[in-house]
């Protein structure tokens, strides 16, 4: 799932300095709801705080809210078309994909982000997520026992740990697991250490961001 966190309120307020009468705060009911940053609960709280802010500043701003199921599909956006169209400014509490998708649907509207889209992650405790995949486009998990060196080693090293690995933790942060420690232990436990004994070729990063903005077409469904 996409994990996001709310921007600092100071930063959001800065984005809302312009002249507008109606502000729509729009949350998303999927990933950012689950990652507790842009669901209905957060939208309502944001509305409460911003309303206080505008009245303190003596501004007449009408705040509307909605939370739609998914900002990344037009069909859901269209369900609330009127609400979007009536707004002078939209504060999106969806991920970066959602913000841009909204802009594409309503080219005449200004949409500003309330969230920082962080990474794809898994829930590790209540309110805590960890990155597990970078979306490199060329999965190597088979070889590394299901622990990704690209995502979980701070340096994405493919041939083994760097010299900064200490007692299972990464040199970058003493609370971050060393990805290679995890890979090593995992491969050892499933008797597959021979997977990493041999030299690993430089990775082809073309399928990653390095190949330019990516798009994908499922031939079975897509027009191709």
């Amino acid at each position, binding site marked *: 799932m996409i994990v996001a966190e709310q921007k600092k309120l100071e930063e959001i307020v800065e984005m809302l300095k312009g002249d507008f009468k109606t502000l729509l705060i729009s949350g998303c009911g999927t990933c950012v709801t689950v990652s507790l940053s842009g669901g209905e609960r957060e939208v309502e709280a944001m509305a409460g705080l911003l309303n206080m802010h505008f009245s303190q500043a003596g501004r007449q701003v009408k705040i509307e809210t909605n939370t739609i199921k998914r900002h990344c599909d037009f069909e859901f956006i269209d369900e609330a078309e009127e609400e979007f169209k009536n707004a002078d400014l939209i504060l999106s509490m969806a991920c970066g994909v959602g913000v841009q998708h909204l802009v594409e649907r309503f080219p005449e509207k200004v949409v500003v982000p309330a969230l920082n889209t962080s990474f794809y992650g898994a829930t590790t405790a209540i309110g805590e997520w960890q990155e597990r995949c970078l979306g490199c486009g060329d999965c190597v998990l088979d070889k590394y026992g299901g622990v990704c060196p690209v995502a979980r080693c701070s*340096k994405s090293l*493919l041939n*083994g740990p760097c*010299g*900064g690995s*200490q007692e299972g933790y990464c040199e970058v942060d003493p609370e971050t697991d060393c990805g290679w420690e995890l890979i090593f232990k995992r491969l050892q436990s499933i008797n597959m250490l021979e997977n*990493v004994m041999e030299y690993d070729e430089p990775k082809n990063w073309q399928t990653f961001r390095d190949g330019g903005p990516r798009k994908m077409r499922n031939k079975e469904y897509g027009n191709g």
Partner: protein
Amino acid sequence: MGEYLSLLEKRLDKGQFVVCSEMGPPIGAGLKTIKNKSAALLGYVDGVNVTDNQTAIVRMSSIAAAYMAKQEGLEMIIQVTTRDRNRIGLQSDILGASALGLHNALCLTGDHQCFGMDTGAKNVFDLDSVQLIKVVNDMVTKGVLLSGKEMKAPPYMFIGGAANPFADPFEMQMIKMEKKVKAGARFFQTQAIYNVDRFVEWMKEVRKRDLHKKAYILAGILPARSIKALKMMKEDIAGMDVPDELIERMEKAEDPEEEGVKVAVEIIDRVKKVEGVRGIHLMPVGWEKITPTIVEKAGFYPRPEVD
């Protein structure tokens, strides 16, 4: 092989116990520092590393600084990290360095940029250190670039790698070292040794895998100038093992600098006797002028000629 392009390689091949040292390039474009530093080292060491933006702090490029020091008569070892350059930049630098007569290269991953001042930098890590060694080795031995493109005039490099006896997971670190040997690493410089017992244990494992026969192991020595420096290394530098007894000893010392030299010489005396150790590598970070003193006190001066 006919004439040696690398004097360091020659000394090692001839069986000499070598002494290497390290030089941090200036944060600036001045030439004078390099000249002064070079003059101080001349005659005391068999090879000098020039670090490549160590701890991710911007400094003069390793190749440029090494070239200038070479003009002063020193045998130089360039350092190449994969943090700041991708495969294109790395190969291009190797070609340039070789053309400038720099024929020793220590291939490293590099400290993460979070240790430096440009924490907001985007890192590269297109290749890892093993891949870099292999790429350089292929350029040297096969005359091909990573893309497969052949070169009419291939570069020459005596290729080295780093090894950290104190990093984890121990076995995986060994596997990686073995991979570096297979990829073409001819010598290793180790992380600074304070815990000699652990180093001895590590060398046992190195010998078990015959790695000491396939590559030259140079033991890393980092003379500590003060208790503060020692504590900083223990706490802030990745992959260091500084025993508490040593900190205690430095704390009790009346003259920390003198004690630091004494400790370094004691460590050298112990590690040079370990089977498979073929030299030492001094890295007196921020205290480079102490190198000649230590070389003398350790009984390595004068350096033998190489015929």
